[in-house]
């Protein structure tokens, strides 16, 4: 029973027959192909689907299309104009680009539409107005302060008619002509106009829609699987089960332990295990078919946590038992260490499971090609790994599969594992038609790997003067049903578990355990987020026990050049920890000379404020002996532009800008003439996984060295042609100067081709060799360091905690792009704040409680404190222009800085996350 409605979208009038249960979001995206409006949750929670209906911001995902009758709708596509063939951005769009508010870009249409309505109502919005208006418009990249500044600047530009100004962000102290100076992202314009395409925005002729039957129980044996009824449903094109897997039955990133589909007689290990997959003519039919599939299970005892999994009588989840890995760190002698200590302290901490909650849910789209190959369109952090795994499951040689990486609406470590890639490819293979497999938020929350819940016992022994002599830690990490990157993550948690301190005697043991919870894998911070919380809490307890200033305690024990890490690595350069500590300390004491003393707010004595401090370090790169390589392919085109290619992934963090800047720097050219192509296994060389904060280092270096190689090739070609010494050839101002001639890059391309040379260079960069844990050598080629201070306000009556300020200093080697770094720092701090205060992925007996975004709260602009970023630059010799990893270190100290501040304010030690305001209130009430 369709009805016809009339409405205008972006000034254009439409008259359309709609089905009764269509939403406005579907109408816009699927029928009008206005894919700038995104869908992140379909729960009215995230705001990415916001459009204006008669000028009012409205979430189109829950707005019935029928109601749009007679309405005037404005979407992100309707803001920019074209004048004389040139795109003219709306000041809001312009400001978001110039200020660097655009990271992954997925939330940006919603942010801009909501702020558009705000500025219409309040031409001069205050910070409070903005926070009120954007409260429910989430950004997981969380550059909230920058979003706020962009809006204020856009409003100013609109009021005055002046152009949008660029923000003033200081250059790197190591700035060169391009490197170290703020650059806007090459993809930010398309992200603010809604033109940017993410996987779900793609459609292909004849495309089918897929849906997955999940186990829905945490542990059991599949005893019955009947697809007859589902198969009979009209519109179903294919239903596949474990028997239909042409190749290998298991996938995995390191260990192949994760079944593509669980077959009859096989074990279900978590609620998200896939049992059968359906492709159908529509999403609705696919979902109906999934509901018609009949299953029976023989249920088994559920393993709920890592400690239970370690018990000898626990049921065995995998052939080798429940222990994924026992990870050990040994340095010195614990007996000697603790015997010579004046004080010994010990405490156990517990961290929760958290979800990446990237705003773009997973989507894979497989397209079979006529030549027998298969293309998979997907936003993936490791395109080459996807290729391997899809090919393995199909039983094909890898070259038959092409992964065409798409823009990612956030990853944060959560898009490294296989989600729908294999399933969509299998369905496309049997049907011969393109198949799209899109997760909704519910499925995304149930299925993809999380952050490891970890129990951490820390024992510290110290001298009276504060020198730490011995540190012993014991960790139980819950890696869930499958390994994913669990071993690597827990190794990082373990090696970093005694903090960034120079300690003679260290022992750490970690038991990474399989359980029946959703798998745990990579998540920004890679295990160090958890162990930093434990050890940094203990540092404050130690300071208090010894009557020392907590900052002084850290300074005294801090790693420095010449220190040997817990794993036996001599730090030869680039250890900016003390400078980070000093800078945050002095900034903090400038604001408050007695930062750690509780201070009631005058007039509201029940509100008590205090500061807390924490420091951290985090490796850059894979380390531990894994070869860490990345390739970059650079080509000069006839029109004088460059293209640099690598399969490294851009998830919003800004790698593409780094690649572009490195090439521009080496060519002395403008960054705008360098295009970047990433994430395509046919067209780009392997960039390795985008994990462990490694890409600026390895792919940054690969791009730089590809440029150096091409520059040398150009130089030697021109030196031959013009018969001048190579030293006489100079690259400057976007040209090459030879013998008084000035050649443009187009000239150069022509000349080289005339000489029979291809102006192209491929560079395979190999990072310095590392050694496996336990061998005592260099486990990592670089470390980043950080210190943060947090000012909190605790309501002593209700237990509520508010973070007022964060001071964050990060030693990043060299700030290659200060603008992007600002976004990384803000986003990292906010993610740390979420980890501490708002986020709690709850699993009860293997069943996921937080299975909707409504139940899993990530920080919004309303939680955002004042964030001050202090950049410390201790270049590392091998890094590109001295740079090292940024992505993770920015997030790690936030949680303990906040919990230490809570302790200082109200004398309550938070030892399990997230902070529970009820516990604080009840504890205070009982005193």
């Amino acid at each position: 029973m369709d009805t016809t409605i009339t409405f205008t979208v972006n000034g254009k009038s439409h008259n359309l027959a709609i089905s009764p249960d269509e939403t406005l979001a579907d109408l816009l995206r699927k029928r009008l192909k206005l894919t700038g409006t995104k869908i992140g949750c379909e729960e009215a929670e995230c705001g990415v689907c916001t459009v204006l209906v008669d000028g009012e911001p409205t979430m189109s995902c829950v707005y019935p299309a029928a109601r749009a009758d007679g309405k005037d709708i404005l979407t992100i596509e309707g803001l920019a104009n074209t004048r004389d063939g040139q795109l003219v951005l709306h000041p809001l769009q312009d400001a978001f680009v110039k200020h660097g508010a655009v990271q992954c870009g997925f939330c940006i249409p919603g942010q801009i539409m909501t702020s558009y309505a705000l500025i219409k109502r309040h031409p001069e919005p205050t910070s409070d107005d903005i926070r009120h208006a954007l409260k429910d418009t989430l950004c997981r990249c969380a550059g909230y302060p920058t979003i706020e500044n962009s809006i204020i600047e856009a409003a100013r530009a609109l009021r005055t008619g002046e152009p949008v100004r660029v923000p003033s962000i200081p250059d790197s102290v190591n700035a060169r002509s391009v490197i170290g100076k703020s650059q806007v992202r090459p993809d930010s314009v398309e992200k603010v106009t809604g033109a940017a395409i993410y996987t779900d925005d793609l459609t292909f002729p004849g495309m089918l829609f897929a849906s997955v039957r999940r186990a829905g129980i945490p542990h059991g044996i599949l005893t019955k699987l009947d697809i007859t009824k589902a198969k009979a449903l009209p519109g179903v094109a294919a239903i596949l089960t474990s028997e239909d897997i042409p190749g290998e039955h298991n996938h995995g990133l390191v260990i192949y332990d994760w079944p593509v589909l669980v077959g009859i007689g096989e074990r279900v290990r978590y609620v998200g295990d896939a049992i059968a997959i359906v492709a159908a003519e529509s999403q609705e039919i696919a979902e109906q078919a999934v509901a018609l599939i009949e299953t029976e299970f023989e249920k088994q005892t559920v393993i709920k946590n890592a400690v239970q999994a370690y018990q000898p009588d626990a049921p065995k989840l995998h052939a080798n038992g429940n222990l994924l890995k026992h990870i050990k760190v040994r340095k010195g002698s614990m007996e000697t260490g603790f015997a010579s200590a004046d004080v010994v302290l010990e405490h156990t901490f517990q961290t929760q499971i958290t979800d990446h909650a990237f705003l773009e849910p997973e989507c894979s789209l497989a397209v079979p090609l006529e030549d027998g190959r298969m293309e998979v369109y997907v936003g993936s952090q490791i395109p080459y790994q996807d290729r391997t795994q899809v090919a393995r499951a199909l039983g094909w040689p890898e070259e038959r599969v092409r992964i065409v990486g798409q823009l990612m609406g956030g990853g944060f470590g959560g898009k490294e594992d296989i989600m729908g890639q294999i399933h969509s490819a299998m369905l496309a293979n049997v049907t011969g038609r393109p198949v799209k497999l899109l997760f909704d938020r519910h499925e995304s929350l149930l299925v993809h790997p999380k952050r490891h819940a970890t129990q951490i016992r820390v024992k510290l022994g110290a001298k009276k003067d504060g020198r730490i002599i011995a540190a012993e830690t014991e960790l139980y990490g819950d890696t869930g049903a499958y390994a994913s990157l669990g071993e690597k993550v827990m190794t990082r948690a373990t090696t970093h578990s005694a903090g960034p301190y120079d300690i003679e005697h260290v022992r750490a043991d970690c038991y990474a355990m399989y359980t029946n919870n959703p798998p745990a894998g990579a998540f920004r911070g890679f295990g160090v987020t958890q162990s930093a919380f434990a050890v940094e809490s203990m540092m404050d307890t130690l300071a208090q026990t010894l009557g020392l200033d907590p900052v002084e305690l850290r300074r005294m024990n801090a790693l420095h050049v010449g220190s040997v890490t817990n794993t036996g690595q001599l730090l030869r350069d680039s250890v900016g920890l003390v400078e980070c500590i000093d800078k945050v300390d002095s900034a903090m004491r400038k604001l408050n000379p007695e930062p750690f003393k509780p201070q009631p707010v005058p007039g509201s004595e029940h509100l008590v404020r205090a500061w807390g401090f924490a420091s951290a370090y985090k490796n850059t790169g894979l380390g531990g002996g894994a070869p860490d390589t990345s390739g970059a392919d650079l080509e000069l085109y006839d029109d004088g532009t460059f293209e640099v290619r690598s399969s490294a992934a851009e998830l919003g963090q800004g790698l593409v800008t780094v690649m572009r800047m490195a090439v521009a720097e080496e060519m002395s050219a403008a960054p705008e003439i360098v295009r970047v192509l990433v994430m395509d296994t046919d067209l780009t060389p392997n960039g390795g996984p985008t994990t462990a904060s490694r890409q600026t280092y390895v792919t940054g270096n690969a791009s730089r060295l590809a440029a150096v190689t091409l520059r040398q090739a150009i130089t030697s070609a021109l030196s031959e042609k013009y018969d001048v010494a190579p030293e006489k050839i100079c690259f400057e101002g976007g040209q090459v100067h030879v013998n008084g001639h000035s050649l443009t890059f187009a000239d150069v391309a022509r000349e080289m081709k005339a000489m029979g040379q291809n102006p192209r260079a491929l560079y395979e960069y190999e990072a310095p060799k590392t050694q496996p844990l336990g061998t005592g050598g260099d486990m990592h080629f670089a470390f980043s360091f950080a210190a943060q201070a947090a000012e909190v306000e605790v309501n002593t009556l209700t237990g509520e905690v508010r973070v007022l300020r964060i001071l964050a200093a990060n030693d990043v080697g060299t700030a290659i792009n200060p603008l992007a770094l600002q976004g990384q720092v803000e986003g990292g701090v906010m993610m740390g704040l979420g980890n501490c205060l708002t986020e709690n992925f709850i699993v009860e007996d293997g069943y996921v409680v937080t299975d909707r975004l409504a139940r899993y709260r990530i920080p919004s602009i309303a939680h955002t404190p004042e964030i001050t970023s202090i950049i410390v630059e201790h270049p590392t010799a091998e890094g590109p222009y001295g740079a090292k990893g940024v992505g993770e270190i920015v997030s790690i100290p936030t949680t303990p800085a906040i919990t230490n501040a809570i302790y200082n304010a109200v004398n309550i030690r938070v030892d399990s996350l997230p902070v529970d305001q009820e516990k604080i209130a009840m504890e205070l009430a009982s005193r």
Partner: protein
Amino acid sequence: MNLWQQYIRPETVADAVTALTSAPGPALPIGGGTDIMLDLHQGRHSPVHTIVDLTGIPEMKILEIRDGRLFIGAGVAISHIALHPLAALYARALTEACDLIGGPQVRNVATLGGNVAHALPAADGTISLMCLDAEAEVAGVAGRRRMPLPELFLGPGKSALKLGDVIVGFYLPLAKPGEASAFKRIMRPQGVALPIINLSVWLSRSGDTSSPHPGPLPQGEGIKQIRIAVGPGGSVPFRARNTEAFLAAKAYSPENFTAALDILLEEIKFRTSAQRATAEYRRHLVGTLLRNTLAAAWERAE
């Protein structure tokens, strides 16, 4: 999905009632849909045949003074109420509640009728209306009737509305000089964005209302009448009638407040909501919440 087969947008209340009662299958009215659409999508509500959208009915979108009372149409968007000067003047508790519900996008479509009809014991709009002594006008097959708000609720998520019933709007007494209301709530940063406890107070002051009063609980002057609502204080939105009776015609003093709190704790039945708040925590919070909300209403009533 096919969660419903028919979507109707009537233009009069009578048509809405007819549409609801004449549908060939289960029929449901929707306001903004911010509760019910999600329930349908997520399978918490069984699929229905017909959706009757109430937001196109002009009568239900009116906010005005009518017959010496404030009338708020059940289809008025929450954001509209939050910004409306008449609501701010006569029903501050409601304005405050509406300003806290959801975010701006939710408030732009969510309606007061939906907030009340959903019958949750701690819906912000409902709790504020409870202290304002609101009366609902309900249209049904047998015509229109007025119902005091508490009569609308049978249990958590269960209203007394029958098939074909539509809440047309709410009538609120106009606050006179010396009368005022306030609403406050306490959230928790994790989990669903609903309050763990909320509370509204309406009161009238007696005595000399012109002299300034330092401190939160000045002595001397009296509370003439008072109404207090707390969510979630039971299976339905809770009016603290014993506490009200105690405080009526009493001085606004710390001693009376302490005694009133004891009565409140006696008459209210807090429950523990897993992962949200224990009953003990709610008992702990309600004192602070009552003190602050009472003080806000008291100051306003000058």
